[in-house]
């Protein structure tokens, strides 16, 4: 896999295409056009933010890529294969942690392995490492209800890492958390996906967050859901949280705002 995302040049990345959409359209029922004519091309190791007001089809786009719902028309491929059903090289994270209350943190992290095969000692070691990576060392045997909301999302992230998927879809994963926790988790998420060199699609309705994390931002507008603009974000990685106050950063913020406002 090409590792262009970590310290890529200021020009556009040159990794190979992983997810490709051409005129992807999704109509619910007869009348609700959730996504219309979406064209996008996501390269290996890229971090893509999807930003837009609620109802503009962000979750729909993600769920199409995940193979959870079927497109109405257009072409959608992952690694050059038409998406028809969920696949194990794609992992997903939701706004809710969706943990099983009767399983400890580590047992929750082991769930994807357990679905695929009998748990081995290797899987357990890997789960320990995943939990360590998300900063939950020492909490392996806590149950979800014994953990805070932020820690629950960390478990969900560790579970996603455990799947070994190199495409990660995240639907407002930190949207329900307070601002401080969210900021901390964003920083850690960036470090982790950088380490894993995973291709990431990250949905948010927070413009700053979207830009701070992303190599490119897909700006979406509602009624019907459309990709209005794709904006490159060329800050060096690793990024410091302080870039959010820089002039360049705020120029991009303005550009996103303008795109959203003009629709």
């Amino acid at each position, binding site marked *: 896999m090409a590792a262009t995302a970590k310290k890529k040049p200021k020009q556009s990345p040159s990794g190979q295409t992983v997810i490709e959409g051409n005129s992807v359209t999704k109509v619910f029922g007869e009348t609700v056009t959730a996504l219309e004519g979406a064209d996008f091309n996501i390269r290996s190791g890229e971090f893509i933010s999807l930003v837009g007001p609620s109802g503009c089809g962000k979750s729909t786009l993600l*769920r199409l890529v*995940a193979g*959870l719902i079927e497109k109405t028309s257009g072409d959608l491929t992952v690694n050059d294969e038409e998406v028809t059903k*969920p*696949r*194990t090289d*794609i*992992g*997903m994270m*939701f706004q*809710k942690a*969706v943990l*099983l*209350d*009767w399983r*400890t943190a580590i047992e929750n992290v082991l*769930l*994807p392995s*357990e*679905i*695929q095969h009998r748990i081995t000692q290797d899987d357990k070691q890997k789960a320990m490492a995943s939990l360590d990576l998300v900063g939950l060392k020492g909490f392996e*045997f*806590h*149950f979800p*209800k*014994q953990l805070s909301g932020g820690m629950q999302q960390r478990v969900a992230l560790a579970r996603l890492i455990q*799947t070994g998927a190199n495409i990660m879809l995240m639907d407002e994963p930190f949207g329900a958390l307070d601002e401080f926790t969210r900021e901390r988790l964003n920083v850690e998420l960036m470090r982790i996906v950088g380490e894993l060199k995973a291709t990431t699609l990250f949905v948010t309705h927070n413009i700053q967050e979207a830009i701070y994390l992303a190599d490119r931002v897909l700006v979406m507008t509602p009624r019907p859901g459309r990709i209005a603009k794709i904006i490159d974000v060329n800050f060096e990685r690793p990024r410091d949280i302080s870039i959010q106050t820089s002039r360049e950063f705020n120029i991009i913020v303005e550009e996103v705002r303008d795109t959203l406002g003009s629709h």
Partner: protein
Amino acid sequence: MKLLSFLISFAKYSLSFIFVLGLWEVYARYGGLNELFLPRPSKIGDKLYNLFFKFQIIEQGTIYWHFFATLAQMSIGFCYGIVIGNSLAVLAAFNETFRRYIAPYAVVFNVTPGIAVLPLIIAWFGFGWESKIALATLVCFFPPFINTLTGLLKKNDEAIELFQTIGATQSQYFWKQQLPNALPEIFAGLKLAITTALLGTIVAQFGSATEGVGILMQRFAFRLDMAGSFASLVTMAIMGLLVFTIAELLDRRIVFWRDTKGLERVSKKKQRKLSTDG
């Protein structure tokens, strides 16, 4: 500390209980109560002592035999009831057509007093154990049915999507998510079933029987042996308490994630297990 506060509250409850009994005893002794209506506590105690420790024989058996017979009939009826109730619930949860067709029967069944069909049950099953077991089954299968169904149908779209994305099969979803997720409701159903099964058994014994605490109660009452009747009542209460406590303990053990104490207990246990495993 915990033990001490437990002992104190235990003492408080015991004292208030003894106080009420004492008041009752004194009031009855000075002629305030008709003994044919409400016997004195000391007489009930005396009767219980005779039944339990002097092995007094009533209707060809000691109280232990009657106790055991009732418990056995109840347990068998309870087992049939939960098997039938839970099987129907699983069928209804997975088959919408079945669910739709069974719904009106369920409603009618639920509002019909099951106990009232005892004469029919006796006509079908006779005077032996079968009729007791059958009535217990009949009155106890509904709570597990409706509770288990509710538990299995709990809406959980996020979990379904999660399981889809990690490539789980339908049956993996059922065993790892849907069923454990329904356990609190399933146990609520079992706890209701265990007390209704006891009720069904005893009422069936009233109809006709040669053994059981129900028949004890009836014989004593017909003879106007009020102390004996109340002693039977106490025995039934003990039995109810016994089976309900067992169900409650099982519930706490299996559905441990409902309260913080259970979570802490299991969490510590798993941690210990790991450290001893090496």
